[in-house]
């Protein structure tokens, strides 16, 4: 009713509100990014999978922890596999490790993707980050990045019965098997690094840094974003060539 009586006034009000919205949107943009414009980019044929913070398992960690949740990642990996527009996947790792089963699930998913995959370890790819890093077709590690290899354990808890120890031992074998299957490191060498004494203060294991990880055969190459993108594009091209030649036959 009011609208009909005074359309002009309402029109002005709308305009004013629109202006206000515009300026507040601008302020918000500045607060978010420190800039007002983000360039629009074309659809990317390469998708990314960030593995950050802790790999969260079946127990939800307190909100102040930065976590990667498998229930988020697993469907995304399926989506990447299914979407024909996505040609390659790049896995970014900066993780302290976490739940073994969740980590192995993510690793197995990445390893069984039919599309080319490349991983980069930036900062750290510790503990369960190691199988995730090697699960891709090709892996990179930043020169300063580190990977801690150590036996599997229950945080701080004392093992009560021998069966628990056996269970942990089997779980450890699963990790060792996965890593040796998906990288060039020998089982003996990986175990040696895992049970090494004296490298980590007051703990068993080894902290493997960039070039060392490549030397041991754990990671394929030292490099960063540029190298990883080049490699991924090369793998994508190779796959296209393969598909092309299959069609001709």
């Amino acid at each position, binding site marked *: 009713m009011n609208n009909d009586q005074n359309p002009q006034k309402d029109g002005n009000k709308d305009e004013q509100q629109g202006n206000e919205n515009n300026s507040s949107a601008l302020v918000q943009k500045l607060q978010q990014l420190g800039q007002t414009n983000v360039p629009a980019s074309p659809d990317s044929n390469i998708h990314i999978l960030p593995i950050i913070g802790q790999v969260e398992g079946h127990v939800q960690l307190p909100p102040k922890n930065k976590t990667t949740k498998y229930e988020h990642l697993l469907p995304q990996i399926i989506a990447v596999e299914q979407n024909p527009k*996505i040609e390659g996947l790049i896995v970014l790792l900066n993780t302290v490790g976490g739940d073994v089963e969740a980590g192995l699930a993510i690793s197995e998913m990445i390893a069984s993707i039919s599309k080319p995959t490349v991983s980069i370890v930036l900062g750290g790819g510790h503990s369960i980050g190691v199988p995730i890093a090697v699960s891709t077709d090709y892996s990179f590690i930043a020169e300063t990045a580190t990977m801690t290899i150590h036996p599997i354990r229950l945080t701080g808890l004392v093992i009560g019965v021998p069966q628990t120890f056996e269970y942990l031992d089997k779980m450890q074998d699963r990790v060792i098997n996965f890593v040796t299957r998906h990288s060039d490191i020998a089982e003996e060498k990986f175990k040696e690094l895992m049970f090494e004494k004296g490298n980590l203060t007051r703990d068993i294991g080894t902290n493997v840094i960039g070039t060392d990880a490549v030397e041991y055969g754990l990671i394929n190459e030292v490099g960063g974003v540029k190298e990883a993108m080049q490699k991924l594009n090369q793998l994508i091209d190779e796959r296209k060539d393969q598909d092309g030649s299959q069609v001709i036959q």
Partner: protein
Amino acid sequence: MILYTPLNEHDIFPTEDDEYNNYKWVTINNRVMKVQDMKDGTYEVLQTISTDPNDYLDEQYSPGAKIRL
């Protein structure tokens, strides 16, 4: 205070349930986002999870953005 115990920090100082309730995971435009309840009807975007790199450039839902659900 120095604690000498085989227990986890969380076991000794459990997180308040309220802390969990302040945060939510929502799916908007095919991407998963962690949002914090600002208690004024709006939610602040804290984190985006997506495989599409362009989603991270979307200013409307970048971290710090206030959204209504």
